[in-house]
């Protein structure tokens, strides 16, 4: 590891390329957060590899002064898997968007998570296709008017975190583009997790889907529309922190209750990030009836794909020894011609 790691600053992680997102794009805030976080990760700069697909978010690697690969639409998890397989010592990040990761690349996202490849996947979810000029995306709400859905979309959106949990991701979190204080520690935790980590970042597109997350971002109203989950803490929210989430033990569904009104503190669900059941329920919560859950929804470490493969290889080499090609060619039935 580079000795000077602890002396690096934001500037060391900024490339010389001019950032070319639209003015006001949430991606700027995410970029700044990641660049500021980098020195804290205590890792040599050359060890970070940012891999992206196609879309606005996927321009991200160009602006990081690390190794980076801007690949093709939807395939970043596959390219990143190859990077990790080739060199397990690298810290591999995947920067993707809702269309990239969940539409054209849905299959790869699912399998990278299922395999538990040690990748840090950051999905910038703006619920729209930006780079192709505003078509609705697989996370767009029903009724989204766009050039390809002039009367409003009729198909139902999917929830990125629910998909990640369904695919078996051992680390699933949700955060917000412009809230560095929330986003930075969440991403740091995802980085420290060994194995696949998945962070959905709610990201505003000021051009094609402006204000779509205003309820959870606007400081005046957000407390009533989002809940910041923390392991071991009761699931409370609201301007006066007097609303809570309770599990209805008959229907096995969550319900919003008010402290002192229809529930006591003891009845409020305590967040357990190791519970897949709870994570699934929290990931599915959405407005207007429920607050949107942000924070680490699920975290349950499991052995990672590439290290398991390496272990297999080590075991095999112990019994078989290092491969000798000439011996391999001469193996089996051979015969001499004189």
């Amino acid at each position: 590891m580079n000795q000077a790691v602890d002396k690096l600053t934001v500037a060391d992680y900024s490339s010389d390329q001019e950032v070319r997102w639209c003015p006001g794009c949430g991606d700027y805030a995410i970029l700044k957060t990641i660049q500021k976080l980098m020195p804290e990760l205590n890792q040599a700069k050359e060890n970070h590899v940012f891999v992206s697909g196609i879309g606005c978010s996927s321009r991200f690697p160009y602006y990081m002064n690390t190794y980076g690969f801007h690949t093709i639409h939807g395939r970043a998890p596959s390219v990143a898997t190859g990077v990790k397989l080739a060199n397990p010592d690298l810290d591999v990040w995947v920067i993707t968007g809702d269309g990239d990761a969940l539409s054209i690349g849905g299959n790869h996202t699912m399998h990278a998570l299922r395999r538990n490849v040690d990748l840090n996947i950051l999905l910038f979810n703006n619920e729209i296709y930006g780079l192709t000029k505003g078509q609705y995306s697989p996370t767009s709400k029903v009724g989204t008017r766009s050039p390809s859905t002039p009367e409003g979309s009729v198909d139902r959106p999917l929830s990125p975190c629910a998909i990640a949990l369904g695919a078996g991701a051992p680390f699933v979190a949700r955060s917000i583009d412009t809230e560095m204080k929330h986003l930075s520690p969440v991403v740091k935790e995802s980085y420290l997790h060994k194995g696949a980590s998945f962070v959905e970042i709610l990201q505003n597109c000021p051009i094609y889907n402006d204000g779509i997350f205003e309820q959870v971002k606007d400081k005046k109203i957000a407390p009533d529309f989002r809940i910041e989950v923390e392991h071991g803490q009761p699931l409370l929210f609201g301007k006066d922190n007097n609303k809570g989430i309770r599990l209805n033990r008959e229907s096995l569904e969550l319900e919003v209750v008010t402290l002192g009104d229809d529930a006591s503190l003891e009845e409020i669900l305590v967040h357990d990030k190791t519970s897949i059941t709870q994570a699934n329920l929290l990931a599915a919560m959405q407005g207007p009836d429920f607050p949107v859950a942000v924070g680490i929804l699920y975290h349950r470490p499991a052995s990672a794909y590439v290290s398991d493969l390496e272990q297999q290889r080590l075991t095999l080499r112990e019994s078989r020894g290092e491969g000798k090609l000439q011996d391999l060619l001469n193996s089996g039935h051979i015969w001499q011609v004189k």
Partner: protein
Amino acid sequence: MSVETQETVAKASHSPESQALEDVVVRFAGDSGDGMQLTGSNFTEVTALFGNDLATFPDFPAEIRAPAGSTFGVSAFQIYFGSEDITTSGDAVDVLVAMNPAALTTNLETVVPGGLVIADAGAFNEKNLNKANYDSNPLEDGSLDAYRLLTIDIHSQVLAAVEEFELGHKAALRCKNMWTLGLVLWLFDREKATTIENLQKKFASKPDIANANIAALNAGHAYGETAELPTGVNVYKVPKAKVAPGTYRNVNGTQALAWGLIAGGQLADINLLFASYPITPASGLLHALAARKEFDVTTFQAEDEIAAVCAAIGASFAGSLGITSSAGPGIALKTEAISLAVSAELPLVVVNTQRGGPSTGLPTKTEQSDLLQAFYGRHGDTPLPVIASSSPADCFEVAIEAVRIATKYMTPVMLLSDGYIANASEPWLIPDIKDFAPFPVEFRTDPEGFNPSLRDPQSLARVWAKPGTPGLEHRIGGIEKSYETGNISYDPDNHQLMTDTREAKVAGISADIPEQEVALGESKGKLAVVGWGSTFGPIHQAVKRCRLEGLDVSHIHVRYLSPFPANLKALLADFDKVLVPEMNTGQLVKILRSEFLIDAKGLNKVSGQPFKIREITNAIKAELA
């Protein structure tokens, strides 16, 4: 099958003792569940150990277990062996082993008149005859009078031979193939020891099964020795071939390709990541490499073809050599990513084990119809080198070449094989790996003056700087890059320059590959027969035979298809006519015509079967008439 050999076989029917033959074709045919491939591969091994030159062709159905007795469930294994150099699996069959009526009806037309047909009478019951659409039993109604027929109730023979092991009726009958193999070993005067050893190894954990199979093998052999056989059925003597001295083994195309890739990785001093998705007939390569983790090769079964090629590209970015493999339909899915590798100038080896197309086509049959896809099947101006193996053993060297070119020129290389090459096997003079010159990869480590667009002035290859190297942090991608800095550039002149550079880099490889040689014959004359890939064998034999008849014809086999060897154009210009046999509707011929403006003619076949030698000799004679 040569005219000469046909005559010898005909004469053989009058000889009571034994008959010497230069070469012979044997075809084992039965139900998919009858174990014909195992029978064939055991016979191949014995034949190779004896010292014959040989070539084999497994011909099996796409269905894993088709209904018993059905014609579409027939699985066959053909072996051509002899005392001369053998480069095809043979045109016509001298000895057909038919384990049931379906096997007989689907394979009889391949047998020469006077050829020997060995049939298991025990399987020619009414039910099986109906399934094969026979109105009457061909073993009894005289319809096989043109052949020498050896009818044996192998069913009862086997049941008697393995009775003592009390396996039960069904398991006992599974030994049919070994009984038959025993008989065929007797027929060609071959030893049983190797097969017995193989059976002991294969069924090591089930000694009863091993012993039953061995008993069946011995019984079949003994039957040949002792039974009163019809006139004309006797022991064949096929003398050893005169081949170069050295150590030999049998190798199929899949093995040779896998080992060639490992060898290439060692010569390049680089780790391999082989990423692929299962597809017939290419999956064998994944299996072969997955079993070799003691070498510096990692295998990755991806979720789909696209993920496989992308993982390979990611590995190349990270400093390994990424390799992906598929058949035509899978290659089609990979093409966008292959273009990324061209644009990002990363090394990549793409193996296409071609099969009959289009779409699902004929998954288990062979074809060469992806050449145009290899040349042109991508978006944008996307040149890449294309090389093809000509035979199972040739895969070893071709794989090494693919690795060399990919790493030296920072480019994807398309390596074309096909279903025939992958499954067929031939004896291989085992090379000494020390005879191959190493071509170690040099990674950039010096930060001084580095940018990711730096090129080697000679090869035009882009610099390779792998993540983890301090001071070389850089970004690459599929967007057009500045020739000077490697940063994104939409500049019109730069795009022209980059397109020209990519083109020139690949074109320049023609100076780094061997000159085109003539495989057989003169380097000028009346007719050049030009081939690529697995048509090597039949073309070679056809040209050889025509030359023995005094015809002015040469065989040119093109291994390096893109770019062509620098002298190919001039070489072809020295022939009055050019004939291009291909297992497609005319793909190389189109390229030769458009590149060289010559009046090359195609000889085309897309039946899922390799060319027969006589199909090519006929075409040569027609051209020279």
